[in-house]
Structure formats: C-alpha cells, structure tokens
C-alpha cells in the first residue's frame, strides 16, 4: 500500500460473470463453514439446518465453474490451463502459491470434493431419517466424518475470502490500495450464507429450530463486516482513491441496508447467555424472509461496488 498511490493501469473488465462468481463463492464457502459449525458445536436439532447448509453449499458451488468458464469468452475451452501448464517442453501442473487466482482454482477443485461428499452424506442421512420420529440421526463417519467437515470448512473459508485477496493482488486502484477485501468478502459471505440458510428454512421446517442461532450469527458477521467496511474506506482514503467509490454510492448504501437489516433481525438474539439459549422461532415469517433477501442483496451490492469502483 502506498499513500497517494497513482495508478495507470487498464481495467481487466471483470464484470457480471465475475460479480456472479464472487457472490456464489461467498455463499458456497460461507454455507459450508456454517453447516460445519452447526453440526460440530450445535444441538442435535441443528443437524437439519446443517444439512440445509451443505445442500446450499453444493448447489451454489455448481454455478461457480460455469460463470468462470463463461467469463473466459473465446478461450473458454482452455479453462483447464489454470490447472495444467501446457507450455511445450514444460507440461505439468500449474500452481503458483503467490497468485491467488492459481491457488483459488485449486482450492475450488478440492472444495468441490468436500462439498459434493457432504451434500451426498446429507442426502443419505435425510433418506435414512425420512421415516424416523424426533431428532435427526447422527451424521456418518464419527470423528473422521467431523474431521472431514472441519477440513472442508477451512477450505470453504478460503473460498469465501480469496476472491478479495485476488483483487488486492493486482495494481488496480482501490483494490490494490487495501488489505481489507479478503476479510470483507469473507464476513459478507458468512452473513449472506446465514441469511440464505435462514431463507431456505421456509422449505425445511425442521431447520427452523436453528433460526434464532442463525440470526445471532448473522448479527455477529454483520458487525464484523461493518468494521471491515470502515477499515476498507480508511485505507483507500489514505491511498487517495476513495473518490472512485462515489459513483457507486447507491450500491454502498444497499450494502449498508443489508448489514443494517441483519443487525435489526439479530436484535434480541445477540445476548450471550451462559445457558438456556436464545428463543426458538417456530418458523421463518415474512419479515425474516424479507430481511434475508435484503442481506443477500447487500452481499451482491458490496461486491458490485468494489468491483466496479476500480473499473
């Protein structure tokens, strides 16, 4: 980072497909991480929401390679060159730990395995529990299964955050003037994922047990996002590039509305109680669903504002 940084770069024209990818990468990573946390530290009755999270992660992941490949335009058939260096005489795997795009592609591939296995496991468990009464059955795999989820969650957190680091590792104004984007996209992705799982509980009544906890988590993630957003603006102001964000004021405001909605919904749930837990919500009401939509729009608006501010 440099004070009063001067940039003479060309914009890479990362626009709608990349915006879409960043949005879904935040949701797939965030959903997997939340599902794992619900399973590992939550009540047995949180298992329904955990499975919902694993399904959400897998489905949102499926969109990612489609968007990335489409973005390549006429070279779309060479998408696999991200993984294999086809330089004549030097054919081999392509991996650069210092290039977030290179690391990210590999992480996405590996995460695909974790997301697919966890979604399949959830499907198998749902089939097993279909006729059972009471709490969902225990997940498959015991300690190894939990370790599998934990490793998957670590990669998931990377997927949700590296897109911000990728932008910073450039010479573009705004993007390269801050170190906050990785954290900001992660916090926003986690908040959006909590909102998305909340939204989807409407289709899975058993998962409604976790609604209050999801609200509470969403509130914490939104506070984190707000702090990082302030830090982001301080750093780009120091670099002298903050004015580039002004044309996108409506998007920034929408992002703030998402954060604010989440905090309003979390109000009353963000009490740390030694025992007893937060109140259980029977099911997601219209207001809850509306807040979830606003949070998701905020997640999308934040990424759009960041992407377009530099271009």
């Amino acid at each position, binding site marked *: 980072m440099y004070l009063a940084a*001067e940039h*003479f770069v*060309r914009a890479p024209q990362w626009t709608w497909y990349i915006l879409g990818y960043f949005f879904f990468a935040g949701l797939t990573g965030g959903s997997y991480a939340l599902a794992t946390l619900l399973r590992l530290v939550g009540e047995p009755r949180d298992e329904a929401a955990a499975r919902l999270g694993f399904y959400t992660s897998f489905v949102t992941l499926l969109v990612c390679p489609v968007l990335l490949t489409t973005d390549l335009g006429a070279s779309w058939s060479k998408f696999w060159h991200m993984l294999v260096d086809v330089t004549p005489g030097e054919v081999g795997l392509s991996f650069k730990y210092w290039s*977030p795009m290179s690391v990210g592609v590999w992480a996405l591939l590996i995460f695909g395995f974790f997301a697919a296995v966890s979604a399949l496991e959830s499907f198998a468990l749902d089939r097993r529990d279909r006729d059972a009464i009471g709490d969902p059955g225990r997940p498959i795999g015991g300690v190894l299964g939990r370790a599998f989820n934990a490793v998957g969650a670590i990669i998931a957190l990377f997927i949700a955050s*590296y897109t*911000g680091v990728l932008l910073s590792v450039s*010479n573009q104004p705004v993007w390269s003037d801050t170190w906050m984007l990785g*954290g900001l996209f992660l916090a926003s992705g986690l908040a959006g994922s909590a909102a998305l799982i909340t939204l989807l509980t409407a289709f899975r009544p058993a998962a409604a047990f976790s609604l209050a906890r999801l609200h509470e988590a969403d509130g*914490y993630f939104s506070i984190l996002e707000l702090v990082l957003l302030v830090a982001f603006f301080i750093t780009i102001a120091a670099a002298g590039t903050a004015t580039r964000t002004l044309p996108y004021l409506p998007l920034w405001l929408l992002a703030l509305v998402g954060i604010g909605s989440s905090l309003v919904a979390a109000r009353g749930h963000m009490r*740390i109680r030694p025992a007893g837990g937060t109140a259980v919500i029977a099911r997601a009401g219209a207001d809850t669903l509306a807040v979830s939509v606003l949070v998701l729009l905020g997640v999308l608006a934040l990424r759009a504002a960041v992407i377009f501010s530099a271009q």
Partner: protein
Amino acid sequence: MAVTITPGESYGFFTDTSICIGCKACEVACKEWNQLQGNEPKFLADSYDNTGQLDAQNWRHVKFIDDVPAQSANAGNGTAFLMMSDVCKHCKHASCMEVCPTGAIIRTEFDTVFIQQDVCNGCRNCVAACPYSVIAINQSTGTAHKCTLCYDRLQGGLEPACAKACPTQSIQFGPLAELQQAADVRLAALHSQGINQAQLYGRDDKVYGGLNAFFLLMDKPETYGLPNADNAGLPSRNDLGGYIGALVTAVLGVIAGIVAFRRRGATP
C-alpha cells in the same frame, strides 16, 4: 547499426523521447510486421493522437503530451510537446508474469517477456496487474496480447520492426548493457546542455527491477503516465497483508459462529 542477436543475452529498447518527432512510423511498422489490423479509426480530439492507448491492436503507441502554453512568453522560449513512443517495458520483475495462473507468460531466451497464445486462456489477471496498461484482450482470440519485442524477428537475427523503422533513432534496439551505456552518455550530454529535467526511467532497478525497454524522459514519469519508483509495486506486495486480513476475519467468524451455535443445555 547492425546488431548480432545471440540467445542467452539480454536485449531491449532504449527510447530517447527527446528526439521523438511523433511520426508514428514505429506504430505502422509494428502493425505491418505483426499483422495487427488496428482498431476502427476514431477522432479522439486529443492532440495528434488517434491511437489512444496501447492495446491488443496497438503494441506501440506514440503519446503526445501537449499541455503546454499555446504561445511562448518570449520569442524563442517556448515549450515543446512531449512525445514518447510507448511500448511494453519487458520488466525484469514483471507484474503480468507474476500473477499469470496458466504459465502463459514467459521470459524468452532474449530476456524479454512473451505471452504464449496457445497457453493463455484470457483470464485477464495480467491486465489487472500490468502497471503500464500495456496488455489487452483480443476479443476474437480471447487471449491477452502485447508487444513481443518481435520475438520472431529476434529468432531470425533481425532487430524489431519499430526500431528498424524509427527515422530519428529515438527507438534504439540492442544488448541491454550497450543500451544502458548509450543512455548514460546521452543523459550526460543533455545535462551538460542545461537540460536538467532529462532523466532515465527504468535504467536502474528502482522500477520493477529494471526495464528492458527503458526511456529517457523530459519530465517526471507521472507526466507520461508512468508510475514513479514509489508507486512501482508488484501485485504480490499485497499477498501477505490480504491473507492475514482474511485469516483474522476467519478466526473471528468461527468464534462468532461458535458463540451463536454452541450447545446451551436445555432449550425451550
């Protein structure tokens, strides 16, 4: 000046902007040799420049910097336009090469930076990284394009087309060490004439480890749209900070999740 071109040696350009006359012969020669069809002609209302910028169709671009008074204060005391034939700098520490995830961008046996068209997949990471706005995507091929320093001509023992065509020898091609010597001599000559604003850009390693295509400028680098040494950072400078920011957020996020989801004993 005939140059014997030997693989394994470093070659480059020394562009002396003090003698550039803005004829654009370099642009034409580059397009002719590299079979670049050029963009649709447009009137840019920007001095004598209708090329506009370096891009996939323009691998040389003569910049006209004419923000000078229309008339001199005193006769014979006017300020000349600044003209500069811009090109890929073939940086020693190339930002484009650093971030390229496919390995398409390589350093050749002539120490130049080259994009392998059959390897590049058009991800545009190099476009975001290049601090000189050199690289652009050719929409028809879907790949990144820039000056090759006439790699094919070098392989055939020929100097690059632009240097060959330059009528004033503003663009000089040769072994890097010889060019650096010539630049030092030229700079000393200008300074001895009282032209103290003349300076070399990319001659030493302060900018991206040194540039194989370096310049003699008649004003500060920013005037020509070139980042000064303080602003010449590689993209990887943000790797560590970016990942630490993400890691701290991840830890806080997991703690927040544990606080929100933890077992609380009996629930209502």
